[in-house]
């Protein structure tokens, strides 16, 4: 059993989220956080019976905040919120993304400003630790006021009653059955519980965090693929000289140039055509383009890092503030701070893939490839010509352009004009995840082409030295491909390399590279 991750609403990292979501790392609630939650809960319980209206505690929701609710109905108010807000449609959210959403919601509550009991977090964490994962429909959230519908589906699994569906080891069950089998008690809701479970953009952030993690890894794979292609195309190294990039000192470009130098160090193919003064942009401008993407991704990483440990509830209970009313109604649930960075992520990753596709085009085009065989076809393995995979890459980067439409730029008024600007951040996150997986396939295709191209160079010039990093990259990638057997299709080769990249196989191939974050 691995050591549990302790959550306190303050220190959750992107790596932690991935670990809980994909590697089932156990999670526990930290002691101070538990005490903070209890104090905040105690205040709400007292306030719920007072005359002072507190949003969602003794009032209705959204535009119905104008209606006062008798304190004796507060449990039903919470339950009704979950039931009527379970408005998701479409396919079911995959398990890792659901797990990420659960740990993010638990961490937001662990800040101790939502007025809800530690029991809610304990229940969420018990579900994570025992693998009882709610069925959450993917579509229907506007990302404000939070991912209400998806989180309401999560809440229905927790709240006692004949509602909610869960998956346990891939088997779909009623929530009552699944929780009973796992020995996890369901909760009778109290004042504000419904709001505390639903108010925040945790689905946006869950999908976005996993996509961002994959994007960071993908940029490293893209730099390796670029180095391999540049060597295969007998590129010139002067464009990557450190002093050049110090004169236009973008952090990302400096890092990409450094990584290319590191990966290509010692290569006998680089600078092997002194008559060629400069290369095409898809080679020469790799630091400028991929570097700009690194800078954009770093912005997204910074924003998401804030959101991972943010209070996203409404109202917030801030006991340190003076005055009797400790409940602060604000707009912390609004998905915009995450939606915009995820739309930016789409642009960045689309450009990483666009550049890759153009390098692949050069590798496969006889007149552009410094005498590589046209289409990278050979007598040995004729079915492995690379013309068709290049077309596949073109289709993928084109699809990214359509997915790149910025979802967070849109808004449609909701809730009788009370919630008259919404984030659409959930759509941004879903599209970002699609762009990243399309881009991963494109990088895999470039790598496939570059491996073949370098194998041609090695055949033409036996023993020619490859770069320090590219040599390892070629070895590893060729190893993956050789496992596939002689009758493999390009489709199988691309998926195998993409799977290798997705699992981070390229990351331990080469050490000493500049990370993004």
């Amino acid at each position, binding site marked *: 059993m691995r050591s549990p991750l302790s959550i306190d609403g303050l220190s959750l990292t992107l790596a932690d989220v991935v670990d809980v979501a994909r590697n089932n790392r156990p999670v526990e609630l930290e002691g101070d956080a538990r005490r903070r939650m209890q104090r905040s809960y105690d205040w709400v319980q007292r306030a719920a019976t007072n005359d002072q209206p507190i949003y969602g505690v003794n*009032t*209705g*929701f959204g535009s*119905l905040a*104008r*209606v006062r*609710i008798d304190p004796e*109905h507060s449990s*039903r*108010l919470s339950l*009704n*919120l979950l*039931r*009527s*807000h*379970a*408005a998701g*449609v479409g396919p079911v959210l995959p398990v890792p993304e659901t797990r990420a959403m659960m740990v993010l919601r638990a961490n937001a509550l662990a800040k101790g400003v939502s007025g809800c009991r530690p029991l809610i977090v304990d229940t969420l964490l018990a579900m994570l630790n025992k693998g009882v994962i709610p069925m959450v*429909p993917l*579509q*229907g959230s*506007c990302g404000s006021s939070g991912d209400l*519908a998806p989180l*309401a589906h999560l809440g229905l699994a927790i709240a006692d009653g004949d509602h909610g569906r869960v998956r346990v080891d891939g088997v779909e069950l009623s929530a009552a059955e699944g929780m009973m089998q796992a020995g996890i008690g369901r909760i009778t809701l109290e004042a504000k519980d419904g709001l505390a479970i639903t108010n925040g953009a945790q689905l946006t952030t869950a999908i976005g965090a996993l996509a961002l993690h994959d994007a960071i890894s993908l940029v490293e794979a893209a730099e390796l693929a670029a180095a391999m292609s540049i060597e295969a195309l007998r590129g010139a190294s002067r464009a990557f000289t450190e002093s050049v990039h110090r004169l236009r000192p973008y952090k990302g470009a400096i890092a990409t140039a450094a990584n290319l130098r590191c990966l290509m160090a010692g290569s006998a193919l680089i600078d092997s055509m002194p008559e060629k003064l400069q290369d095409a942009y898809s080679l020469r401008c790799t630091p400028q383009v991929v570097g700009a993407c690194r800078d954009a991704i770093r912005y997204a990483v910074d924003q998401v890092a804030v959101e991972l440990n943010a209070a996203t509830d409404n109202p917030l209970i801030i006991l340190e503030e003076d005055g009797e009313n400790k409940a602060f109604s604000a707009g912390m649930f609004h998905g915009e701070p995450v939606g915009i960075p995820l739309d930016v992520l789409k642009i960045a990753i689309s450009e990483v893939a666009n550049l890759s*596709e153009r390098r692949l*085009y050069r590798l496969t085009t*006889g*007149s552009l490839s410094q005498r590589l065989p*046209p*289409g990278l076809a*050979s*007598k040995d393995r*004729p*079915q492995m*010509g690379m*013309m068709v995979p290049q*077309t*596949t890459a073109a*289709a*993928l980067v*084109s*699809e990214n352009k*359509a997915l790149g439409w910025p979802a967070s730029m*849109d*808004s*449609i*008024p*909701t*809730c009788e*004009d009370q919630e008259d600007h*919404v984030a659409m951040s959930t*759509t941004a996150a879903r*599209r970002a995840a699609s762009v990243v997986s*399309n881009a991963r*396939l494109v990088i895999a295709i470039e790598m496939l082409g570059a491996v073949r191209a370098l194998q041609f160079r090695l055949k033409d010039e036996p023993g020619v030295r490859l770069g320090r990093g590219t040599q390892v990259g070629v070895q590893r990638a060729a190893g993956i491909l050789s496992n596939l057997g002689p*009758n493999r*299709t*390009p*489709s199988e080769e691309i998926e195998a390399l*993409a799977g290798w990249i997705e699992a981070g196989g390229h990351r331990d191939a080469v050490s000493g590279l500049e990370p993004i974050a």
Partner: protein
Amino acid sequence: MTVTISGEGLTCQRLHSIAHGTAVVLCADAHARMQANVDSMPDGPSILEEKRHWLVGGFAAEMSPDELCRTFILGHCAGVGPRLPDPLVRATMAARANVLATATTGCRPVAAEVLLEMLNANVVPVVPSQGSVGAAGDLAPLAHIARVAGGYAARPAGSTTYRPSSKEALAVINGISMTAALGAVAAVRVRRVLDAAIAAAAMTMEAVGAGADCIDDRVVRARRHPGGIEVATRLRAWLKGSDQVRYDRGANAFSIRATPAVMGTLVDELSATETVLERELNGAGDNPLLMDGEWLEGGNFHGAPVAQALDSLKTALAQLATVSERRTFRLTYGQLSKGLPSFLVRGTGLNSGFMLTQYTAASLASECKGLAHPASVDTIPTVQHHEDHVSMGPIAARMLLEMVECVADIVGIELLLAAQALDLRMRGIAFDADGHPVDAAPVRLAPSVDELHRRVRAEIPYWEDDEVLHPCLASAGRLVRTARILGKDLDW
């Protein structure tokens, strides 16, 4: 029922029924025409050797014809991503068989018959959905089908033994049959959603007591758009005998008053798209063509005509999404719904009623805006400067399919809310602008609207106090997709 494949007369509707399991047979005349076409083939080198040497370098001449075909087809199996659902693969196979049946492609009848045999035995190849640029055809997806048809991957015992000729290896993949097939299935779904949307709009008009002027035949005819005339005609039919939709109601908001204009645009666009699709389905989408004993090199594999039509249809469909969402907004908005309670329930506050239902519609409508991005405005040079302009039609088709799922749920939501609103009217439940209950006479529904209301209620109960919303939304979406709202029960 059996659909006869003859290279002509294949409609979107027929292709949709094949997608869902209808049997197919090659027409005897088409069989004879195909044979005559092959017999007219001039002597000379293999088409594949001549045209596709780039795939295998200069080594084509060293390969046997069979080896070359196998290499060609397996080399094109470069699709990636999620698997295309079986009905869409079936539709693609039938569409390709019909192109071969045009008897212009230099293929033997058996090339089409093998595809039809697979359809009748429900042998459905695994086809990855991504990787085609829609020129020169949907090469990769069709190659995944050809791999099975050509016997390069396992087929069930008893299947016809078939090895493609060199032209057949080319002809089976060299056209946009996947784009056309996906577009045709999508067009059938769009029509289904549109029919339900007109019914939903009638229910909403009845629920808010709309003015009758906007669907007056004189008004829409004066503007001449056939789609607008049709929508108004169908709305009048649904609302015949209505006490609520009258000429003395005054002007409504645009989402109601401009229904013939907005939804009529989709009617016209859909008809235009079906025309393009049906031309393509029955057209010689291959290259080169064998005509009058000569090989002719054209660009019939290019997806531009269909890509453009599907992108246009997406734009019009997005308008249905946004206009239905606005009607949903009005129905849930106490101050805009002419006396209906906020969120269409009593006891609001403790109940949130259908508050979130409108958010879901808004979220889906916003998704549609993104999906409407025209795929065909992009092109990327491929294949060594040779295929230097491509259509991106398959992306348009897949996004259209995704969009129509969103719109089916949006229209389902309007049905759900309009039915609830009609219940409140029938019960005489009304509120003033401040949300206080007022007396109102129970309303009697127009007979056809009453029928629609009963079909909703057969599957979704009236909402008194807050319940779990999701099953209602799922049922509402099914009413649209199955056409049960119109008293039918169809495959989606």
